[in-house]
């Protein structure tokens, strides 16, 4: 599993609040159920969309093929971090 915990927790928390917590604490009004429906669908679809993107990249089967000019630029502008993770 190539996933790191922090983004997973943060995004799940964010869309969990939008899709689960907010509908529960929504104040009573004529449009309460409509708002709940909107929030739930928004939370679910946005979370799923992020999740798919994350999961597709966490165990990549291929890497990016870069032109050597791009490689040189990336090497210089986005330097290697101090400690590389295993």
């Amino acid at each position: 599993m190539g996933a790191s915990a922090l983004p997973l927790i943060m995004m799940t928390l964010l869309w969990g609040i939008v899709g689960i917590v907010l509908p529960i604490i929504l104040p009573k009004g004529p449009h309460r159920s409509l708002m709940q429906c909107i929030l739930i669908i928004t939370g679910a679809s946005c979370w799923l969309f992020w999740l798919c993107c994350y999961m597709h990249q966490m165990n990549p089967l291929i890497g990016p093929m870069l032109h050597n000019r791009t490689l040189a630029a990336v090497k210089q502008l986005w330097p290697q971090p101090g400690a590389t993770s295993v």
Partner: protein
Amino acid sequence: MGSLFRSEEVALCQLFLQSESAYTCVSELGELGLVQFRDLNPDVNAFQRKFVNEVRRCDEMERKLRYLEREIRRDAIPMQDTGDNPEAPMPREMIDLEANFEKLENELKEVNSNAEALKRNYLELTELRHILKKTQVFFDEEGHLWPWQAERDGCAGNLDGGSVSLTQNLLPDEAKGPIQLGFVAGVILRERVASFERMLWRACRGNVFLRQAQIEEPLEDPATGEQVYKSVFIIFFQGEQLKLRVKKICEGFRATMYPCPEAPADRREMAMGVKTRLDDLNTVLSQTQDHRHRVLVSAARNLRSWMLKVWKIKAIYHSLNMFNIDTIQNGLIAECWIPVPDLETVQLALRRGTEKSGSLPAILNRLSCVESPPTFHRTNKFTRAFQGLIDSYGVASYREMNPAVYTIITFPFLFAIMFGDLGHGIIMTLFGAWMVWKEKPLSVKKVDSEIWNIFFGGRYIILLMGTFSMYTGIIYNDVFSKSLNLFGSSWHVPFNESTIRDNREIMLDPKQPDQYEGTPYPIGLDPLWQLAANKINFLNSYKMKISIIFGIVHMMFGIILSLWNHRFFNRRLNVLCEFIPQVLFMSCLFVYLTLLVFIKWVNYGAGEDVPLVLTPGCAPSILITFINMVLMKGYEEAKGPNSCSAYMYDGQFYLQRMMVVVAVICVPWMLVAKPYFLYRASKQRAMLGTGGVEGAMEETPSTMPVQPAEDHDMSEILIHQGIHTIEFVLGSVSHTASYLRLWALSLAHAQLSEVLWGMVLRIGLSTAGTTGGFAMYFIFAAWATLTVVILVLMEGLSAFLHTLRLHWVEFQSKFYEGQGYAFVPFSFDSILEANESTVTEAK
């Protein structure tokens, strides 16, 4: 459940109105806008209805008001729109209104005709003045006084004693005396002068002499009000015959002739007389115009509210024409559809109406009905646009699940998957937000442009589409085809300079920890992919997978909604025979497909301690796996640590085989089960020998009507079920594939964006120096225009259309019937709006 999830309950009611209070009650109901009247006299001719005279009177009033409006508009007087909504006046006030309009119309007509007569007079006098001036010139040119001529007396009455004869001056000396010249003076349109002269020459064989001079200033034609140019002419001739001929020709050419005295003294006198008369006329004319202006201004103040009142009266009488007359109790009977939650409000309105007219109260009875009531969705300004999208396909059947609620979010979301670009999303959001913010002033302004009205009506849709596009743009990491690097890329370049220099292209290896960090970019696509040459390969695989995943989620959602419909209408048979096999079929095949996608995402990857079977080289293609599953093809497993496996997990073959079997069983289940149960039920009923179909009959008319078992009906049921099954089974594959348009459009959008950047903006950015800055100014304008026109407008429209199709066909075919008719209440607001739009169109 909120009211928008399902259409509201609508009841058929019968209304007993007393004759006196009918008008006021209908007026109150019109203000309320919650009641839909049924036409109880559908086969009665429009001219035989009871209140046809009143309607005719209203039409007359409307005609008069429109005449007034035309006159006001001609004088360019502004008409105030105070925005107030006057109540429909009582019938007795209608008579007052009629008298008022009649008076105004007559007054205006009189003023107009007076003004026209005055103008005609004015024109004649002006022309006469010009003639007098010009003839002076003619005769002065010719004239030199001969003393002996002054002594001569009149030549055939053309002379005034003591003044010079004009005509004699023209004659050569020898001819003077015995020859009398007559003349005719007049005014003719300038265009006609040449042909006039020619005609005169030909007709009189050159024996007449014409002099003409142009009038410099244009004169106003009284009938049309245009300015025309005219010329003065004077024709000299000898003898009566020629005189007649000349006069005839003048009449033929519509030249106006004026009596011009020959002697200059007479002319001078006449000129002064004309001048005084002209001055008088001027004063009278201006007073007439003032009067007309005053009349129009006072009418303009009230015109709009009068128009509204007349429209309301007409609407009330149209409704009254739909009622039945109850001669016994001297009242009117109406049948109407009323939403059940609003019955109280309607009762209150009726009470108000009867109080106003001071008669017996109206009675409201609720009836039971066999036919299906209209579909009423109570929408507000936000939900109305989405409801409109769904209603364009078909109005929901009475009380079935309303897809519009879910469309509020799924529509912008699916749009955003196809449109995903943060930059374009910002543009769209700003546009939508501006329209929503300036809602009130923009909606009051009546704009004729159809396109603007469409955009403005969909402002909430545009706002939501833009917002979700911003989110998907962040996830796709695409801002005008460039990526943002907010969190640091997970891919690194560890090579040294010589490696880089020696190799044209290098593909980073995810297995190396110094090239791939091991954890992905936290939110969205890694920014390095934007710079990669094989970006499309990676993105294709990603976008196809999300298209399928979201498509199948959307479709399963639709199937589950059908369960809610079945439960509401107590269609247990449908739950058993349609819903369950549908869910099983979709799950076994397509939800399992998405499961495979997730399994492959989790299990297969590069890394140091990944077993061989799970390395990228051995990752099985999901599409091939799926196809083989349906064909029930097994694999020869080569055992050994160095071989790949076509299977992703243990027992896959057997599980898949079972799933295919279940899915195949679902097909005859869907096809045969329901007709069989219906057949058995009708057989039982026939055996019981009663006509009572209470027990087995479903509530709503939307399901098949159950009748005594005849082969004819059985075959109908079978055919219907067959069509339904085939549609579902074949549709499941085609609809799933149809969702791939999410991938296709998002790819097209990204590529267009990239082309625009690379071919247009990059030129400006890469030119150095001041030329670069100068060129950048124009290139940015070109790039911005193309971005808005092609990428935002055209692609936006395209993605909108595709999303609409996905909703209408792929989603709604799973549960939606759409066979209802809309609830159109009798509402003054909608009637007035409709009338206003016809008026604006007619302009």
